[in-house]
């Protein structure tokens, strides 16, 4: 999983940085349409902000709705995750 050209230390540093950037930007990311989550993952071997969306994105109606490709130098990856439910379908009561 970990790319060989990056040491554990570098990854740890990038991870800590990503956590800091996530904290600053998560509220504005979560406010965008279709966004249901923000986390930290690996994209192409680099630490990335992962933006979780319910369904594939349509063309944004307002410039503000656009999810940036990177934030403060950290790549942003959009992942379609579907509808997230506690316990899935069993919670729909009979």
């Amino acid at each position, binding site marked *: *999983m970990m790319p060989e050209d990056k040491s554990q230390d570098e990854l740890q540093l990038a991870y800590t940085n990503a956590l800091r950037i996530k904290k600053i930007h998560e509220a504005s990311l979560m406010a965008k349409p279709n966004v*249901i989550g923000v986390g930290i993952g*690996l994209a192409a071997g680099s630490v990335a902000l*992962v933006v979780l969306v319910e369904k594939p994105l349509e063309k944004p109606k307002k410039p503000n709705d656009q999810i940036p490709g990177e934030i403060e130098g950290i790549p942003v990856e959009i*992942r379609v995750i579907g*509808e997230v439910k*506690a*316990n899935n379908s*069993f919670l729909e009561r009979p």
Partner: protein
Amino acid sequence: MSVQDEVRKVKETNKEALMAKPNVIGVGTGYKTRAGHATAEACIIALVSRKMPMSALIETAMVPIELDGVVTDVVEIGFPRTQLARSDKWRPAPGGVSIGHYKITTGTLGCLVRDQATGQRLILSNNHVLANVNDAVLGDAIVQPGPIDNGQIESDKIAELERYAPINFGTAPAQCNIAKGVAVLLNGVAGLIGSSHRLQAVQQDEKAANWVDAAAARPLDDALVSDEIYEIGTVHGVKPVEFGMSVRKSGRTTGLTTGTISVLNVTINVDYYDGRSGRFEDQIISTPMSQGGDSGSLLVDGSSLQAVGLLFAGSDQSTIFNPIQKVLDTLKVTL
């Protein structure tokens, strides 16, 4: 013909009729037990999972006292293990089988944990499995199997709700007044419901953030539960989560499944059944490894018997877990 041969012959003649009775799961021959003592009297034995009083049986369901001159006996053997499904009744009940508050559908018994202060063994699962999404009273009946698997209070109660971390739905409009009332109440007290210890403020309120969907139930008797997780084993201690980690879980619906950790430190909105959505912080996401009814499963490291998370939500593309240490700290229990 010897007495034993005679009994065997009568058994063969009546076997099908006995097996056709609703509670009989086997037929054999042996010696009659009277008042708890074995006798020398050869008899036909009907095997049942659970003995019932005569008064609870309709006449055709009863095993006749005598068949063609040979006495009968009814012997209770419980549920043969190899035939048990996770949605069946298990005694003792291990992790990975159906369980739930008496008003819900069903979830999964995660594993046994121990009260930090007393060492008492408690059942770990989700708030939405054991505490009906805050809509429960401490001491409420927990049934194994869960209600959708025909678990009933009279026959299948295994534990009582001991404590839970309330889920804070914040300012999202509640669908019913009761839910609204509960949310307001919980906003006031915050933290853990049911602990005898000082309440820890785990829910700072502005963003209505949650960290866990967790609850614990106290078994009615220690012998009703098992420390093991079905098809995994007995888990000790916790392991910090990492990207790419191989993990597994044992759950009521999909059984033993494996996955890989894909996203960490996740902030995510999770839908509950009545239109309410809860915001969770610092969650773990894996590749899809669950379906409805698996909630409450313990997430276990793929290569050791250490716990990683508590399964509580999912989508077609992912499964979502609370970090296990946060669950244990919040409920004031150890693993």
